[in-house]
């Protein structure tokens, strides 16, 4: 019974999230938007890479670096979009739709509700990631033969990585209960930390050595590593481009990713519950500030 209720909440909040993601435009416009947006975002990075390569002389001659940053950037969409999407649920439902309090006082499990709302973000982002990768392979010549992709590793890594990202999102959602003004800046700031320190577009070893311990405790670092191995193969130029991670074999990478993800899931649950309790104590569940 309890499981059925949780499933029902999850399913309906996922449905609501999808309606809100896709229902603002007609289906054709939404399809065009879903394709154009990620490509346009990626092209910024591509042009930066090309410009810097030519500025350094010789043009873009490092396919390993290009593959490294291209895939890292594509996958990072999950981090940015899911973190933003999950935390924004609190702000949007509370301030814009003024429905948060009605969902909160219902028997639905609010943690599961937020979880369900993140599913639509993941679905929309997945479309963006696939479009970006296909564009990279077909239009930009990234060498990623389908036969080289380790599908089981990719699916496993993706599942653990998404669980980790959602856990971060839920922790931030807990904090969002307590703030209105800083909800947007907070998730962008956290995503920015991951972008900088986790080797999303450049190897961690490029950064000052004091930042390496930070990179080594963040699960996103290992997620990106596992995904690069899954897409390009262990020992490939892309997968071994980062000297800090090149020493890990794939089982070590997966193990660290799994353990750190479990720790962050537990942590996010605690933070969410604490944020929920404090919001109820301070009377912030139905706060409307106009931000």
């Amino acid at each position, binding site marked *: 019974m309890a499981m059925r209720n949780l499933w029902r909440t999850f399913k309906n909040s996922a449905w609501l999230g999808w309606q809100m993601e896709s229902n603002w435009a007609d289906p054709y416009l939404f399809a065009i938007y879903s394709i154009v947006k990620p490509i346009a975002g990626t092209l910024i990075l591509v042009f930066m890479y090309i410009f810097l390569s030519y500025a350094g002389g010789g043009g873009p001659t490092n396919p390993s670096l290009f593959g490294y940053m291209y895939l890292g950037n594509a996958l990072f969409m999950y981090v940015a979009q899911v973190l933003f999407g999950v935390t924004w649920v609190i702000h949007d439902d509370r301030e814009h739709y003024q429905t948060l309090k009605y969902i909160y006082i219902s028997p639905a499990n609010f943690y599961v509700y937020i979880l369900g709302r993140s599913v639509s973000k993941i679905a929309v982002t997945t479309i963006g990631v696939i479009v970006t990768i296909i564009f990279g392979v077909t239009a930009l010549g990234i060498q990623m033969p389908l036969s080289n992709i380790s599908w089981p590793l990719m699916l496993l890594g993706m599942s653990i990585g998404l669980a980790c990202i959602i856990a971060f999102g839920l922790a931030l959602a807990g904090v969002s209960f307590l703030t209105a003004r800083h909800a947007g800046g907070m998730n962008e700031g956290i995503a920015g930390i991951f972008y900088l320190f986790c080797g999303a577009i450049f190897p961690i070893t490029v950064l000052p050595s004091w930042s390496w311990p930070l990179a080594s405790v963040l699960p996103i670092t290992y997620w990106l590593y596992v995904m690069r191995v899954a897409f390009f193969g262990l020992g490939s130029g892309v997968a071994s481009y980062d000297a800090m991670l090149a020493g890990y074999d794939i089982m070590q990478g997966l193990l660290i990713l799994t353990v750190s993800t479990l720790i962050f899931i537990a942590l996010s649950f605690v933070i969410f519950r604490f944020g929920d309790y404090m919001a109820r104590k301070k*009377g912030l569940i139905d706060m409307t500030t106009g931000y």
Partner: protein
Amino acid sequence: MTSYAVETRELCRTFTSKEKRGEPKKVVNALENANLTVKPGELFGVLGPNGAGKTTLIKILSTLLLPTKGEAFVHGHSVKTESHKIRYHINMVCGGESSGYGLLTVRENLWMFSQFYGIPSKLAKGRIDELLGVMNLQDKGDAKVRTLSTGMRQKMNMVRGFMTDPAIIFLDEPTLGLDVTTSRQIRLFVKEWVKAETDRTVLLTTHYMMEADELCDRIAIIDKGTVLACDTPENLKRRVKRESVLRIEVTGMGDAKPVSGIKGIHAFNAITDPAKGVTTISLILDEESAISDILSAITKGGGRIQAMQKTDPTLEDVFITLVGRGLENDNDNQP
């Protein structure tokens, strides 16, 4: 465990504002030692002006807010420690807001909320159609919520609150800002809903006396966080003797306050309608002999008496007696 639908014991809630530059922290007592009991099947009203603590009380009872001190039980469960158990038995509708997902249709919105309560989809759809009909909103069922007027949204929210068939429903100023017809429709529906089954309980907050008087089995009068009285409307009104309630309509009187100082007046309230230039003075007298002094004070103040009558006491008179000022001094006009 308690047999009441709602019970509060010495319930307190304070809000502390943040310290700003040069300004110390402010502590506001929104509720002070509130003791209330609501029986199952009762339509219970909480009457008070804006800022009296009515919404704070509803927020605590609906598990949105924790009390600072004291205890509250809803359907026998503590709001502090058993909020998850309470949520199966309650729902809430707040007036004066335009909640709802604008991108969804009215039916989609309502159906989605029904699913959070675990109502089977077919049953939920049936209830939604039935209640949309009761609220005269059936032709808007497939309209996007963003296209609805404020009144229609409020009706949709009434459907959202009642479609789950809660044991206890909290209505926080449900007719606030609505036109007369819609308000009447909603009042009629609430009255019929609570009577339809014996164990349905309504806790309604309002600052409209007529609403409280018309609907409620019992009323708690609340001001500045304190429950001043709690009884049936009839018993509350009996506290004020019929002979002692006097209403005088005056024109041309700038300030009616000098009247309030006359010996023999228990409570005084004056409301001026600027459009008509008429001041209505409500008086509760300790001694009838004060009437001649009152009339002469009005005349001296340049006022011309248009009408004067002794009336049956209203809840407003009860409130004036208890608080020393009228509800209308703080609030909007009644719908």
